[in-house]
């Protein structure tokens, strides 16, 4: 809300700097968006009196004016406004001045005629289109007759005020009014409020009830509904002081009736609506839900189709206003209006919010209905508005208020003890301290021993329970004054659990191996969501109302997100991309709307893992490099159990000949391999290798708690074997056989050479292994090794028909 500092000063004796007040408000009441003066950035704008005008000889729309700017001689200014005339005070931007949009005004010639400055419209001195009065839309602004030529224009237009733009939290609806601000500032600065409520003088003996009736059957939708009638008014422009108050509050002045309703809205936070009494189709007023499909033309000349959840004010059952949101065009106040029906009501906050939201009609009024209304101020606001309209438009207020419904003002009493206050806030306040705070808030309080019984006024409808009182005490006492401590009773131990530790160390391992951590979007397209699944889990979960086609379904794999990242990089000529991601995948569960969330870890490498330098020609990534990363990752997890890499040519998005499933104790927990060239093409990425592991079974798996083996003191002996073997026999098969048949002293089998091609017969490949033997407890004798080695060779020949080379 735009709060005028000058308006506050009418009711409070404050002399702090507005910026200090704003800081105090921020620390005690509501957040501050901005503190500014309407004159910020403007200079050398003075009152000018137009002494004479004559048409420009070379233009049909320009006027040459002689203007008194308080100097001995008049200055000549060329003006293009249609409403320029002699004998009026205008806004003059002198040469060297700055006007709106930071434009600098210079002495210039306009079509050959000297112009020493510019005569300005309000929009030209920083007023937004939204608040500039419509009557002056196309022309210059005319200042009051008593303005003194040469003086600054700022005081005449309220531009010397300072506006504190507050950002109000949903609970502090009371701060949407000058009244609420005055009360809160009075409390935290401990000031006396001179807030003034104007009494109404019913200067017509005619009874309002004879002119109009109001009946609200459904009091849930309009708990309070009241009407007054002001007769024989004359619509006119509002006095300048009122216009200033409105435009400084960000509201456009319109006429003396509508302006009064807006003034009351700002002052009390009570929205009012004025109807042209004579245009009401009936004088039986009611409030009801709209009918589905009911049409209604609002003030802005838009036809609105209503739904049954909307609420409308009706006259003889015909809608005349969208309750709390916007009035109707037909019954709006016009220049011809002579009799006014004034409505002050409380409408259901939720229904108003929904209606305003649905029709995109958020307004000063709807915002206030949404945030709450003080039931005790409805009549106060209605009376003051009626009185002001009568005064400003020369009307007569008829006798009595017509009431369609009336909220009972419930007395809210909350108890709290001093012990409780200090226990929760960590303070050492006394009874006197607390009483003083309640007194400043004007909360009537009774105290017995250390118990306070607080009567909360209806203007603070946000205060209902003990915790609310605690907040009031804390903020008025000042958060700055609350001590800083740490929770004392800390018998518990803080630590990461086994799962969190494993996840964290997995991340560190992959970073050490050269992969950068990526965080991709969990929401993706349904197609990508279900690619690259470790185990097929069907179709992904999808959102009811997604925001964009790219983020519709929850991912069932991490790889697709990483490939999006690769594509993003490749499109920006980053050819070497090595990423990993750790995060959730979502697997739908039958008979449950919530999917299972699995912790996965995945990686991708495209181009080179280690970038090439002048000195070091590195190789492009291949299957074995990425497999090495996965092996090292798994190695570090110290899993007790067998890990196997088994060729799988069936994974749709993967290269059929370059993909291995990763099995833990014969169960698939992940895979590694090259992305299928076709899939890569759809992602617009080059040759790329990926892996993904489901961490859930890894976390659950038994771990080698004692990972250490004593280093044998006795020497080891190694034997090499080179062989030719059928190309369809895998390394794994050979290693398995060697390990099984290698004897008790075999400690290691390492492949040290692999060759396939010329010099090797067709359909065969050459493999060479180094076998290491060691006895933990004794020095091995050559004979034993030779025996074991010969046995393995014989088995290899027998099983795989190898030829020893």
């Amino acid at each position, binding site marked *: 809300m735009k709060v005028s500092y000058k308006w506050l000063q009418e009711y409070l004796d404050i002399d702090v700097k507005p910026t200090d007040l704003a800081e105090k408000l921020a620390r005690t009441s509501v957040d501050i968006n901005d503190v500014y003066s309407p004159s910020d950035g403007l200079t050398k704008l003075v009152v000018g009196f137009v002494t004479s005008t004559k048409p420009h000889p070379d233009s049909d729309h320009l006027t040459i004016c002689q203007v008194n700017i308080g100097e001995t001689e008049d200055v000549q200014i060329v003006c293009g406004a249609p409403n320029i005339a002699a004998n009026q005070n205008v806004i003059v931007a002198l040469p060297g001045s700055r006007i709106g949009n930071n434009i600098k005004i210079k002495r210039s010639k306009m079509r050959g005629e000297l112009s020493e400055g510019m005569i300005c419209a309000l929009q030209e001195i920083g007023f937004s289109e939204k608040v500039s009065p419509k009557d002056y839309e196309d022309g210059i602004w005319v200042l009051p007759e008593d303005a003194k030529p040469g003086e600054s224009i700022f005081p005449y237009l309220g531009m010397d005020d300072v506006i504190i733009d507050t950002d109000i939290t*949903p609970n502090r609806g009371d701060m949407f009014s000058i009244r609420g601000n005055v009360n809160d500032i009075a409390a935290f600065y401990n000031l006396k409020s001179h807030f003034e409520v104007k009494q109404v003088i019913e200067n017509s003996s005619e009874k309002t009830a004879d002119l109009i009736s109001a009946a609200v059957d459904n009091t849930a939708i309009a708990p309070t509904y009241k009407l007054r009638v002001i007769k024989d008014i004359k619509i006119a422009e509002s006095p300048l002081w009122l216009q200033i108050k409105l435009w400084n509050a960000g509201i456009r002045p319109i006429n003396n009736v509508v302006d009064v309703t807006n003034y009351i809205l700002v002052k009390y936070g009570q929205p009012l609506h004025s109807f042209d009494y004579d245009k009401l189709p009936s004088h039986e007023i009611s409030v009801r839900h709209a009918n589905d499909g009911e049409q209604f033309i609002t003030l802005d000349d838009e036809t609105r189709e209503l739904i049954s959840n909307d609420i409308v004010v009706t006259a003889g059952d015909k809608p005349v206003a969208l309750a709390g949101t916007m009035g109707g065009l037909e019954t709006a106040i016009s220049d011809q209006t002579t009799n006014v029906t004034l409505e002050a009501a409380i409408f259901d906050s939720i229904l108003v919010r929904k209606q305003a939201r649905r029709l995109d009609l958020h307004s000063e009024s709807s915002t206030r209905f949404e945030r709450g209304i003080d039931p005790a101020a409805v009549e106060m606001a209605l009376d003051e508005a009626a009185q002001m309209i009568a005064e400003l438009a020369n009307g007569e207020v008829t006798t009595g208020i017509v009431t369609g419904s009336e909220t009972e003002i419930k007395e809210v009493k909350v108890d709290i003890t001093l012990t409780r206050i200090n226990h929760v806030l960590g303070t050492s306040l006394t009874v006197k301290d607390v009483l003083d705070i309640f007194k400043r808030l004007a909360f009537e309080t009774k105290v017995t021993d250390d118990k306070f019984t607080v009567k909360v006024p209806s203007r603070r409808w946000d205060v209902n329970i003990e915790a*609310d009182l605690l907040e009031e005490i804390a903020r008025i006492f000042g958060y700055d004054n609350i001590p800083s401590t740490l929770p004392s009773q800390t018998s518990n131990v803080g630590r990461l659990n086994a799962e969190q530790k494993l996840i964290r160390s997995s991340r560190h391992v992959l970073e*050490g191996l050269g992969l*950068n*951590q990526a965080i991709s979007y969990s929401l993706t397209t349904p197609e990508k969501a279900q690619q690259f699944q470790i185990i097929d889990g069907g179709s992904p979960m999808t959102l009811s109302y997604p925001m964009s086609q790219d983020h519709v379904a929850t991912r069932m794999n991490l790889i697709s997100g990483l490939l999006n990242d690769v594509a993003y990089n490749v499109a920006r000529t980053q050819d070497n991309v090595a990423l990993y991601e750790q995060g959730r995948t979502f697997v739908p569960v039958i008979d449950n709307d*919530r999917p299972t969330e699995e912790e996965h870890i995945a990686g991708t490498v495209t181009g080179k893992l*280690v*970038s090439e330098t002048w000195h070091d020609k590195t190789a492009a990534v291949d299957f074995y490099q990425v497999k090495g990363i996965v092996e090292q990752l798994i190695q570090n997890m110290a899993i007790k159990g067998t890990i196997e890499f088994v060729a799988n040519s069936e994974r749709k998005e993967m290269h059929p000949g370059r993909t291995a499933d990763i099995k833990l104790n014969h169960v698939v927990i992940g895979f590694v391999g090259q992305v299928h060239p076709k899939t890569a093409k759809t992602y617009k990425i080059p040759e790329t290798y990926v892996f993904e592991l489901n961490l859930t079974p890894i976390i659950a798996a038994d771990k080698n708690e004692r990972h250490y083996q004593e280093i044998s003191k006795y020497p080891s002996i190694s034997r090499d074997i080179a062989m030719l073997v059928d190309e369809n026999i895998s390394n794994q098969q050979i290693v398995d056989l060697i390990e099984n048949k290698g004897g008790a002293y075999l400690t290691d089998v390492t492949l040290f050479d692999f060759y396939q091609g010329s010099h090797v017969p067709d359909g065969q490949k050459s493999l060479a292994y180094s076998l290491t033997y060691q006895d933990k407890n004794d020095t091995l004798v050559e004979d034993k090794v030779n025996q074991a080695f010969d046995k393995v060779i014989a088995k290899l020949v027998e099983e795989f028909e190898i030829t020893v080379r």
Partner: protein
Amino acid sequence: MGLQDKLNDLLQQGLKQVEESVNLDSINDVRVKMLGKKGPITEVLRGMRDLSSEERPKVGQFANEVRDQLTAAIDEQRLKIESAKLNEQLKKEAIDVTLPGNSVAQGQPHVIQQIIDQLVDLFVGMGYVVAEGGEVEEDRYNFEMLNLPKDHPARDMQDTFYVTPEILMRTQTSPMQARTLETHDFSKGPLKMVSPGKVYRRDTDDTTHSHQFHQVEGLVIGKHITMADLKGTLEIVAQELFGDELEVRLRPSYFPFTEPSVEADITCFNCHGKGCSICKSTGWIEVLGAGMTHPNVLKMAGVDPEEYGGFAFGLGPDRFAMLKYGVTDIRDFYQNDVRFLTQFDQKG
């Protein structure tokens, strides 16, 4: 000429030859020639048998001195020659040490992960446990149990991705408040937990909005937890992330699940409070929201608000990262440009 003079002559002659030797071969020649069995010194010593028994030991001693002196001179010269040779070789081996070193494989944690880890470590050090919840949540835990009934206006503030009317992508990490409250055994001490994770809002992605971002939630509930404890905790968090010299300001705010609610600001680290574009000339930067847990939240989770109470706080690692590093587009965090990812060196 006496033997003594002869020896003296040989010594001078030998030293001269040593000095003139420029390589290992010539120095070796000198050694063989002068000190060898057929060398002049040996010859001189053979002539000693003609000397008197008085002179013999004197000349013998002198001959040994000559031999020692020559040996020392030869060794010294050899070392000189050797080290000159080595130096020459090392000189030839010299390289341009300003040429770049080889690349090695080393990845980095994501900047948001770094901030989350930093916070988690801080809280674990203060005795908190870490409890990650589901990213797909029930409306009940995401809203209702947090004192946000179906028609609550605050639900408008956070547009939600619904899956069914009861299931949604969590809009905050706060559901873990209700879930941990329900299961915590208070007989074993107070509940102290942090919950980091991804959250989702139905927003259109632009420079400052992302439909996916992160939060770290904290909750402390016990018999003697005060607002002063909250203030102290928030100060530690702010100082951990942004530095000790910054001031922390609390101001009233509103969250349905806390009362009183506060927002914590820190002195703008860019302008130190003078006002700049980062802090929108206020001198303060909003870093987190917090408050004393609302009694309704405790009640709904089956915890007696008369006996137990405490505080909760929530903060946004994405926002922190943007503030701390001056990242201007939140989408940078999720597009994973390697040039972006590799900029955030871990310090310590």
